[in-house]
């Protein structure tokens, strides 16, 4: 227990708020509670230690020592691997603490990478970085379940995202689609689901709540081909999916900041839709839809998945629980595919949609007494107005009045809510 807490207890006793007996009772209660818990600080340092040592070994091997013979290098390639395996095996066999498993798993992850990288250096194996990362992930993915390790899960997610982007975006010679990324993602999800069910507001879950959406958002770029505008459509659907996942009832108890799906989903939707409030992007939309077949299929699959999550939410909680952020991608899709060649209409509709999203965020914020969401809504509306500053022929007087109105809106809404909150507290 922290010494700060003990000090507070002493102050409470001194000021006659609680009696010394109660103080010692409280102390005992927390001491007992802490006993059952593993020392999370120790675990974090263990993982960081293994992380640093493991990546240090990779860097040292990347020096490509010329003075060693091929045999010496080959033996060196296996030493860290065998040590890592021995440690991980020991922690499984003896059923050691999580700290052991996390640290040995992390170390083993890096030693697998070190050993395949050293072998490819020895023989100048031509494999591009993409195929190296692929082998690495395949060899380490099962560790997630054998060691039940969060750290290995995290490393697998990061490495497979790196693989997806490397293969699909950065490789200048040929862009392949990293389909295996999807398999890796499916391989990670059962572990995530397990810890989600056990303790939704645990720190590990929070980390995955952020890292998983970030990973899919980054990796989606590898699935977007050359049809740039359809790429936006895919992203808007993807953000809709993330938002809908974040709204599932399993995350209901979660504080907003711990729900990366919700935050990334709403931010992403608003940013992408904001782009479509400009005139120039609609001029890029082709009159005839002749896209790359693969892109179209990916978009369709993504849309089906998103609609089913939305359908599930509607079925479970009723249509009244659905907010505008959840269905923004449908509205956008209808406008994009049906009305894109009707001149000014889609631009007006998109402006209305973003404005409505802003209003909807303000309403959600006001209902939940959450100043963050409320001001997010106000921010959406102000950015929309600032954007319109550039590409409309509105007179300066009208623009000026609009700005004053929004500014006044900021003050008023926050003020009203503050008042309401005070009334509620009394």
């Amino acid at each position, binding site marked *: 227990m922290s010494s700060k807490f003990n000090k507070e207890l002493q102050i409470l006793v001194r000021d006659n708020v609680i009696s010394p007996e109660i103080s010692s009772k409280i102390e005992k209660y927390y001491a007992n509670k802490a006993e059952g818990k593993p020392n999370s600080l120790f675990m974090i340092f263990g993982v960081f230690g293994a992380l640093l040592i493991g990546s240090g070994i*990779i860097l040292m*091997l*990347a*020096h*490509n*020592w*010329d003075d060693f013979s091929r045999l010496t290098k*080959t033996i060196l*390639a*296996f030493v860290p*691997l*065998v040590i890592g*395996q021995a440690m*991980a*095996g020991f922690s*499984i*066999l003896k*059923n050691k603490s999580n700290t052991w498993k996390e640290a040995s798993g992390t170390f083993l992850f890096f030693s*697998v*990478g070190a*050993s*395949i*990288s*050293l*072998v*490819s*250096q*020895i*023989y*100048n*194996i*031509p494999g591009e*970085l993409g195929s*190296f990362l692929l*082998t690495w992930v395949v*060899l380490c993915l*099962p*560790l997630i379940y*054998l*060691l039940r390790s969060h750290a290995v899960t995290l490393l697998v997610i990061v490495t497979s995202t790196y693989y997806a982007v490397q293969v699909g975006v950065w490789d200048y*010679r*040929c862009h392949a689609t990293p389909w295996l990324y999807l398999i890796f993602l499916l391989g990670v999800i059962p572990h995530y689901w397990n810890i989600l069910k056990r303790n939704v507001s645990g720190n590990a879950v929070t980390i995955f709540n952020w890292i998983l959406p970030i990973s899919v958002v980054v990796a989606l770029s590898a699935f977007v081909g050359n049809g740039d505008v359809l790429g936006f459509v895919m992203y808007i659907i993807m953000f809709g999916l993330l938002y809908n996942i974040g709204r599932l009832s399993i995350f209901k108890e979660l504080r907003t900041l711990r729900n990366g799906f919700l935050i990334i989903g709403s931010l992403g939707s608003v940013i992408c839709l904001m782009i479509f409030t400009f005139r120039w992007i609609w001029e890029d939309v082709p009159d005839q839809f002749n896209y790359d077949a693969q892109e179209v299929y990916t978009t369709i699959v993504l849309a089906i998945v998103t609609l089913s999550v939305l359908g599930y939410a509607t079925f479970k909680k009723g249509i009244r629980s659905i907010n505008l952020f959840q269905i923004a991608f449908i509205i956008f899709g209808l406008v994009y595919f049906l009305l894109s060649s009707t001149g000014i209409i889609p631009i007006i509709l998109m402006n209305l949609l973003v404005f409505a999203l802003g209003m909807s965020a303000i309403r959600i914020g006001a209902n939940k007494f959450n100043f963050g969401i409320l001001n997010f809504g106000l921010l959406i509306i102000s950015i929309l107005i600032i954007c319109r500053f550039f590409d409309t022929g509105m007179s300066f007087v009208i623009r000026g009045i609009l700005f004053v109105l929004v500014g006044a809106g900021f003050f008023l809404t926050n003020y009203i809510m503050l008042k309401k909150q005070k009334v509620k507290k009394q």
Partner: protein
Amino acid sequence: MKTTYIFIGFIALALVQIFAPLKMIYDNEDILTSGTVYKFKTRPIDPTDPFRGKYVTLQFQINSFATSDSTYVKGDKIRVYIENDEDGFAKIYQISKEPLDIKNDYVKAQVTYVYPDRVTFELPFNRFYMEETKAYDAEKAYAKANRDGVIDNVYALVYIKNGQSVLDNLIIDNMPIQEYVE
């Protein structure tokens, strides 16, 4: 009981983890011991791989073949059949998308560009890992060799067997590049 199963699973995984690099070693050693060696004229330049360190990228003189066949497209995997010229350097005998019934050794390559009368491609053994302090010197040494007119003396030693290849060393002026830069 459960621990035992997990442990057995782990042992299986550990064996696969050891087997993967061992198989890579075995395949490459096999080519080095029983493959045929060829000399490919080349030009080294120096980039970095984040995990495997410094290497020199080789740009081979053999990188295109004159053909009027218009069925090749960018990204095609092709077989480049090779033979030795009178100076003992590798030259192209034929390229093909399908296996040909000839005795020549071949390497697998990827088409990088298609011109109306010519196909350019990239040979698979274009990375040569070097000690990090030497990779840049290697590029400089090559530039010097180029100036001195000994350019014909820069080549890669490549072992080839059944279409698989191992880049064994890079030779400048009859010296392995590691010694040449020292």
